[in-house]
């Protein structure tokens, strides 16, 4: 909210109404702070949800970490199983965790990692240039089947929206991993604090079906 420079002349009752609205917001949020603690805080068991959803891959153009501009549709629907997440390079808490999980998944997949396409989409595309993503990929030991994608703000938002991952701003993003056995099949959505074993198990289960 910004009222520093208000070009409008508020009458006193209008001002009062604003005050009250603000107070009401303050009161309700303060009270909520005392409410229940999320399940994740209470137990050691990784807290994540699993849902199965079908998504339509958007037909936008993306830029891979090697600088190549490519149709996202072709990259995602090339026949390989896909494990996908959303990250940005300057994110300090969630993304390192997500990327760490991906790195473990890559290792734990063993030989299967050669068959799977691991996909990391930048949600801060103007800052995450191909060079920055290459550097980031290196930090997490990304192999040849783990690609990073950037593009325009528009294409990144289109992809995020297509997979119900758009939260309005990069700083609002939450932890999400998507797994799909093959093009045309539904996606498994793992949300929350997902451990690498759960991702690998998900992939193995899906690929047997």
């Amino acid at each position: 909210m910004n009222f520093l420079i208000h070009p409008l002349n508020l009458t006193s009752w209008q001002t009062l109404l604003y005050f009250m609205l603000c107070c009401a917001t303050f009161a309700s949020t303060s009270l909520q702070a005392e409410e229940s603690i999320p399940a994740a805080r209470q137990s050691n068991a990784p807290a994540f949800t699993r849902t199965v959803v079908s998504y339509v891959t958007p037909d936008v153009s993306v830029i891979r970490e090697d600088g190549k501009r490519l149709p996202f549709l072709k990259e995602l629907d090339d026949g390989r199983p896909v494990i996908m997440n959303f990250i940005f390079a300057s994110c300090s808490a969630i993304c390192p965790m997500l990327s760490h999980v991906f790195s473990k998944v890559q290792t734990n997949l063993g030989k299967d990692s050669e068959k799977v396409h691991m996909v990391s989409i930048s949600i801060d595309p103007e800052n995450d240039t191909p060079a920055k993503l290459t550097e980031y990929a290196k930090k997490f030991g990304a192999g040849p089947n783990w690609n990073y994608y950037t593009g325009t703000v528009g294409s990144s938002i289109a992809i995020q929206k297509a997979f119900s991952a758009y939260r309005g701003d990069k700083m609002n993003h939450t932890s999400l991993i998507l797994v799909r056995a093959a093009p045309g099949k539904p996606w498994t959505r793992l949300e929350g604090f997902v451990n690498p074993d759960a991702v690998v198990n998900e992939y193995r289960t899906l690929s047997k079906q």
Partner: protein
Amino acid sequence: MLTPFILRQLKISALLMPILCSTLFGAVDAIAQTASAPANLVEQGRRIYLEGIDGTGNPLQGVRADNARLVGAQAACVNCHKRSGMGSVEGDILIQPITGNYLFNPDKFQLATMDPRTGKKFNLTHAAYTEESLALAITSGVNNSGRKMHPLMPNYPIDKSDMAALSAYLKELSKEWSPGVSKDNIRLATVITPEVEGVRRKAFVDTLQKAVMQKNGSTLTSQNKKGRRHMISAAEMVLGTERTWTLDIWELQGAPETWGAQLEEKYKAQPVFALLSGLSNSTWEPIQNFCENTQVPCWFPSSSLPPATESFYSLYYSRGVNLEADVLAKYLSGNKKPKRVVQIRRDDIIANEAAKRLNTSLAAVGITSEDRVFKAKADEPISIQQVTNGLTSDDVTVFWLRRTDLTELGKSTPPPVKAVYFSAEMAGGEQGIPSSWQSITHLIYPYELPDKRQSNLTNFHAWQTMKKLPLIDEPLQAEAFFAVEFLTETLAEMLDNIYRDYLIERSENMLSRNEAIKSEQQVRERVMWSKTGSTAKQQGTSIYPHLGLGVNQHFASKGAYIVGFTKEGKLMADSDWIVP
């Protein structure tokens, strides 16, 4: 008094007042109650916290709930809890403040705004930590209310010595308000370098001073009982933590090599919390260095040449002419590559750096370029005839010139070239482009296009008209205005936690979100309150299409358009938004 009246009305006083009162009256004496620990212990703690190195010099080790092992810098507390120790917010994860004030003094419960967009807006209350309960939390992940902490928080099997060191460091961290801050005032300064044209200097100072005056006028303090609350933050409004500002103007003299010493002298005479905005037609490096060395935030100066080196304390709108050079090279490389690019400039530091950068970027895409420099001294007018020798219709020319020189150019006919490019950054937008040149002229344009940005700048224009401030240089004045507004909002959200590191961290975290929230809000207000208000969509509140920062991401706008003119003299985009 209005505030207690409303609290009564909302029947929340019983629950809220103890928190509010203790915060209101407790914040000051909560500070500095603990005796200072030996410096070497604090230093040992600092290395654990910032670098992830334990007391024996080995990398710190942490284990997360998923058994992931974090080692060294990856395991350092600073990653999540930040330099200030004030924590942060990422998505739905609230990372709590862990400074000594917050851990050990909960009786004086201090409030920190976590995220204005989530319901759980403030840090959680908790019983006071003791050395023992803090050690248990860090080694086993169980907090002092007996709960497992968030799975992102690793367990650290650290020994007693490291634990004592970390605790000593936390007690020192953000212990007191930063220099330049008092209970009801914050001292700021704005830096102006000596070569700035008088007209722009005046427009800049007038804009900045009037905006600060407006901000102070609406800040309710014991001195200003008639102030009207900004209501930027509901918590701020109730807690009354907002302060007035004092703005010093720091005019530098002489050569850039002497600026560092001048800044240090001014700072020594009168410490300031931060440098607000700023204006230069020259290098900004000495100012950035001063900010970094003195740990003073350097808040969105209007500089065309921010240093490329990373810094924690400096925030910029964009990379200035370096960005423009990269954008133009990218545009020319994709668009029927010209045979030759001729760069024309005065011998001044910004133009020289811009040309150097463009030469490098053009070489990288295989375009030949040539430099031509006006012989005129700084106070002499330029003469186009000096630089047009041998130009043909195959050539593309790039003029790195300021607006004062454009007037001079307009007296001559344009050279017989394919296209002419100007820097909007240096020319201060499109206003100065001579109309006789428009048919072959393009601009590298780091701002939002005029028709789109009008709604973004509605409030700025309304204010500037109301204050009878002439619009001399729209980008400059809009930038100065934005700097004041965003600082007002960020400081208000910080409540009573006025620490420099925290200011930078919050703005890294909040800028893009804040812009989205504010845009929505301003459109809604226009619709709600104004009979004639425009309902046009708004993407931000600055002259740029969108702004965003992040950790070590201190250039808020990352691209530019290439624009030309229609026959009617209106600006039109030749390209999409280009991010090099």
